[in-house]
């Protein structure tokens, strides 16, 4: 097991480096084709070239490779002419960034000269809360619906679950998010806000069309449910199939023959086996939920990681994009590793060598 974990951790290295290079190249291309992002700071005014130059250098966009379209910024001409092994070139912007991140824990700064680490530290609590709400919602409701549908295959409830899940799966999250914001947050919320007897926590907080800093948890509930809803449908279907498969299993028949109560036959002997694939899915889904958070946070104006990435990508702040996405990649990789370990705990037949 220990060796397995170490091997998996080593596999992180190429994944993280590959992701970082990809992000580095895409953001560099964006700068090469659309120009110096620092100009955006000056709006319509034309800045004095010396000032522009100084700020550009300060923010780390001064590398000459950013002026050459298509240059991957992997190396640059050495200033003293010697360079690496006398080739006349030395390691370029990409390696500067790697050096900064991994050796100095310096993820760089954004255009307003804020540390990326600070930006992330401020944004991450919102995203975490959103994710927890989403995962709890999809796990609890999804598993419950799946179990009920699976135990009574072909019943009215089963069809309800099947039809509603198809409906949810086929609607993209940005459509669902906008519709929910418009109808639940604005229209229905306005009705609630017109009633005096409803506490503000409900009418202003929970049913707010956007995130409200005054109600940091309540106003995240609906965005979280939107984020969890797509995976909720998958969870419910997965649980349903898994339960239907397992209630016919021989060991469930054995459990009945042992004279156990129906509650125990289902709750202990069937459920434990049925939930193994579901829990694996939920773990992997953390990654997908992060991607979904980018959309959800933008729609509901939640100041989390997702919105941070969207805004930074728009203004071409490559250091923020690279830093944040690298962290997200690490989180997803760690989550997947944890799921694989959890899998071995849940199913004793799985052994990692």
């Amino acid at each position: 097991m220990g060796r397995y974990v170490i091997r998996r951790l080593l596999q992180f290295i190429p994944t993280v480096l590959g992701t970082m290079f990809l992000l580095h190249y895409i953001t560099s291309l964006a700068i090469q084709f659309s120009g110096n992002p620092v100009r955006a700071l000056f709006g319509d005014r034309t800045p004095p070239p010396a000032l522009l130059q100084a700020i550009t250098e300060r923010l780390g966009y001064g590398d000459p490779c950013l002026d050459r379209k298509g240059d991957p910024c992997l190396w640059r001409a050495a200033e003293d002419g010697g360079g690496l092994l006398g080739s006349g070139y030395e390691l370029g912007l990409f390696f500067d960034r790697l050096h900064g991140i991994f050796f100095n824990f310096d993820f760089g700064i954004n255009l307003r000269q804020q540390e990326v680490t600070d930006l992330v530290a401020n944004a991450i609590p919102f995203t975490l809360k959103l994710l927890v709400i989403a995962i709890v919602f999809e796990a609890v409701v999804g598993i419950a619906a799946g179990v009920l549908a699976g135990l009574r295959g072909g019943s009215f409830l089963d069809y309800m679950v099947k039809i509603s899940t198809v409906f949810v799966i086929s609607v993209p999250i940005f459509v669902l998010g906008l519709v929910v914001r418009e109808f639940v947050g604005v229209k229905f919320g306005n009705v609630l806000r017109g009633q005096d007897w409803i506490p503000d926590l409900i009418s202003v907080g929970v049913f707010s069309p956007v995130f409200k800093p005054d109600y940091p948890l309540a106003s995240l509930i609906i965005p979280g449910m939107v984020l969890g809803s797509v995976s909720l449908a998958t969870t419910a279907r997965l649980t349903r199939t898994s339960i239907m498969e397992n209630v016919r299993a021989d060991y469930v028949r054995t459990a009945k023959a042992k004279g156990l109560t129906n509650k125990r036959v289902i709750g202990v002997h069937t459920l434990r086996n049925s939930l193994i694939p579901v829990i694996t899915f939920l773990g992997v889904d953390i990654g997908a939920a992060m991607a979904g958070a980018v959309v959800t946070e933008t729609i509901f104006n939640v100041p989390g990681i997702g919105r941070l990435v969207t805004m930074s990508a728009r203004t071409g702040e490559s250091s923020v994009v690279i830093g944040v996405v690298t962290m997200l990649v690490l989180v997803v990789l760690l989550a997947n590793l944890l799921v694989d370990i959890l899998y071995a705990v849940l199913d004793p037949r799985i052994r990692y060598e």
Partner: protein
Amino acid sequence: MTDVNVKMEALAGVDPNALPLQVKDLHVEFRTRNGIAHAVNGVSFDLRAGETRAILGESGCGKSVTAQAIMGILDSPPGFVTGGEILYRGVDLLKLPESERRKVRANRIAMIFQDALSALNPVFTVGFQLAELFRMHRGMSRQDAKARAVELLDLVKIPAARQRVNDYPHQFSGGMRQRVMIAMALALDPEVLIADEPTTALDVTVQAQIMALLAELQRERNMGLVLITHDMGVVADVADRISVMYAGRVIEEAGVDDIYASPAHPYTKGLLESIPRLDLKGQELSAIKGLPPALTNIPPGCAFNPRCRYTQEVCREDPVPPLYQVSPSRTAACHFWKEVKGDE
């Protein structure tokens, strides 16, 4: 194993002098999309304490369904018991409410399944699965129940029981797993044990060990054993009486020696002739021609008539042949039982 029975609740109406198991005219059908499958069509048999009753027949003849109906663990729907009685010491189990019926399982009538690997839950240790019986039926603490689980593994001769109790089913060999199944069935000291092809999934040497163990434990406890099998060799060794089933009916019922000496039904005779014999080495194996009928479409008259060499017009017509009294202690459902028995 005396304290095990202490906390067992009394079952109303139990007559200690009645037979431990009596099945009377049992009917089971499966209501499927392709029509109704008549899996069991009037099966009757008795079981005395300490007796071994073999139920013999090929795949799909309704023997496992009979066992599941006795245990009350048919998959329902699609399976339904549509008639008959299953009497445990005079109490009709089919009339008991589910809460009472549940307490009969494992306590009074227990069952061993064919494939122990799939019949044991893969995600719990065998200790947990054994101890569960004591915890749920006897209200024992986890610790006491675990200790009993170790005793049980010892009883079925699993070496190093104290360590193995914490192992999972997949860590046992096939024979050892079947021993765990037996331990589980015997845990609460039942009076009747139903073994549904207990050795089919095992290789021959292990089969013999498992059958010997079953026979030994049965003798010690004076337990009634219903042995469901298609293996004529196993039957000859351990059974006292045999019920041969075909298409959901018992077509011959007799003591083991009578059946082997002079079968009175053409199907039984065909089964016996199909056993490979050493003295006929090199010759073609005799087999019963044709296939058993689909249970959704059983032919009128004797269900065996399309495959039978004695068939005459009367066999193709309803009603089905009654159980003729061949001798005071045996019956056969064939119009021509005298010819079958006689031309031996």
